[in-house]
């Protein structure tokens, strides 16, 4: 910096401006690289690199230290690099009953929730598409609005509804339908409700976008050719909304599988889900290598659906 100032001070006026011009030209020719470099470097350091570290830790052994894992690369006295890979963590997870059951349960819960979202979200999206222009806007707003309010507080709202002495039980008892409160909070049922409630907009929006692009004249053409509304739906509308169904389902399925907050708040300790297990294992600071291995396996499980999602998004982008 000081060099530049000195240089500039000793330069005559016109060459000073030529220096500026040179600098400007350099920026002109370099700005593309700068634009690309900054976000690229950021993502490499803060997104990609961490995964390699997690992968590394998952192959390490637990040691009693901080952080609690061994170094994978060690320099021996002779200066020879010694790489130690331990697959014990993975073997442990895949044979341990608890982990195994937790993975399966996570998949079960997210699959059932996804189907529930689809069954509720599909007719809602279709209803929005079929509304008048003003109603359509308002309804879309109504669907997006919860997304802007706190996720945590929306889950919390259901705690109040589902608790033993919560709104639903109070209502049912006061109506004389039941005498004893039904246990709903801290059950798997509550987790389903929570997931469907939070992720329903993620199902509706891609479906809506898909359906909105559909040409209504296709429905008219089908009717004109003698097809009744129900038949038209199954033969024309449904096949053409498959991209929306896939996108919406994956947008629900992927985050639901790794969900932590909902099973923790609504399922209490009673519902096994991998996200919660992972979080607790890490925050309790016990066995990082195993926790890292758990994360890697979860990632592997979700790579396929994530790839499918990206593929469909790419195809949709091409279609436009």
């Amino acid at each position, binding site marked *: 910096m000081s060099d530049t100032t000195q240089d500039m001070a000793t330069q005559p006026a016109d060459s000073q401006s030529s220096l500026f011009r040179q600098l400007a030209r350099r*920026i002109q020719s370099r*700005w*593309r690289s700068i634009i690309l470099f900054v*976000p690229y470097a*950021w*993502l490499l350091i*803060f*997104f*990609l690199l*961490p995964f390699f*570290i*997690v992968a590394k*830790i998952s192959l390490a052994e637990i040691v009693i230290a901080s952080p609690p894992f061994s170094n994978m690369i060690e320099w021996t006295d002779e200066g020879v690099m010694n790489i130690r890979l331990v697959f014990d963590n993975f073997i442990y997870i895949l044979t341990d009953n608890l982990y195994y059951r937790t993975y399966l349960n996570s998949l079960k819960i997210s699959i059932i929730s996804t189907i529930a979202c689809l069954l*509720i979200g599909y*007719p809602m999206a*279709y*209803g*929005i598409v*079929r*509304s008048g222009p003003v109603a359509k806007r308002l*309804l879309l707003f*109504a669907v997006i*609005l*919860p997304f802007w*309010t*706190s996720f*945590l507080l*929306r889950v*919390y*709202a*259901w*705690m*109040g*509804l589902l*608790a033993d*002495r919560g*709104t639903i039980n109070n209502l049912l008892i006061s109506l004389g339908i039941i005498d004893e409160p039904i246990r709903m909070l801290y059950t798997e049922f509550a987790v389903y409700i929570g997931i469907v409630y939070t992720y329903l907009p993620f199902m509706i929006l891609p479906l809506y976008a898909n359906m909105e692009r559909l040409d*209504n004249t296709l429905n*008219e053409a089908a*009717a004109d050719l003698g097809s009744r509304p129900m038949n038209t739906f199954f033969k024309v509308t449904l096949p053409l909304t498959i991209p929306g169904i896939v996108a919406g389902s*994956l947008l629900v399925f*992927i985050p639901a*599988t*790794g969900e*932590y*907050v909902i099973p*923790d*708040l609504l399922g209490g300790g009673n519902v096994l889900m991998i996200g919660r297990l*992972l*979080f607790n294992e*890490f*925050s309790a600071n016990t066995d990082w290598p195993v926790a*890292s291995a758990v*994360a890697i396996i*979860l990632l592997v499980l*979700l790579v396929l659906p*994530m790839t499918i*999602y*990206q593929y469909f998004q790419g195809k949709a*982008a091409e279609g436009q």
Partner: protein
Amino acid sequence: MYGKRSTFLSVMLAFGLAFFYIPMILLVIYSFNYSKLVPVWGGWSLRWYEVLFQSEEVWNAVALSLKIALVNATFATILGTLAGLAMVRFGRFKGRTLFGGMLVAPLVMPEVITGLSLLVLFITLKQLIGWPAERGFTTITIAHITFSLAYVAVIVQARLTGMGQTLEEAALDLGAKPFKVLTAITLPRLAPGMISGWLLAFTLSLDDLVIASFVTGPGANTLPILIFSRIRLGLRPDINALATIIILFVAVCVALAALLMFYQQKRQELDQKIANQGDA
């Protein structure tokens, strides 16, 4: 018109909207409950708002969360816009596939994995270069920027693709250099997309619990972390009050946005009218 909304669809919509909004309405109503036990009605009262406003812990958490959200939104918008520009306007470049992959992956990555891997990164960095010395504001902000920038990039990319390149080409044709075109044509036209990106990044940051919980350190509690630690133990009327304030705030913002959109549309219609008069 053929193909109107059927009764079944209307019923499903009504059911869905009730499902969306009844829990939130109840949340608001119970915030005015005098009783300490949330679901037991003890008469109207503002008692829990008082409790809330007197809690220094809450104010600190709000301040921290807002600080993180502001810094995050600003940086994420800059980085996300750059990334979106590179993806849409730079044609093919070395490492484009990897870059595109890294831009989309944060959108679908489970939060626990993102959080965990960033925590591990920060710990490793501290061991290697002694930075970040302690976890809190900086680490949470970095984590938030990392996933927020991906959302901004998606918005920017969509807008850039939708805009087309004709105006840029016109500017080049009229003698503007590429960098000038970027600053004088592309960025101003991109502004609405950048604003929505900024707002989205801001909201995402305010809303995040899981990633912040992983990368925070002792003493640095964001608002979601504070709320979570309280409601884990059960229902708390002061949280209802907090929720009400947040819902009200969001509702006002959304109403303002809607009003703004409404006026913009009116103005467009007016412009159209004036334009039509020119033809007549």
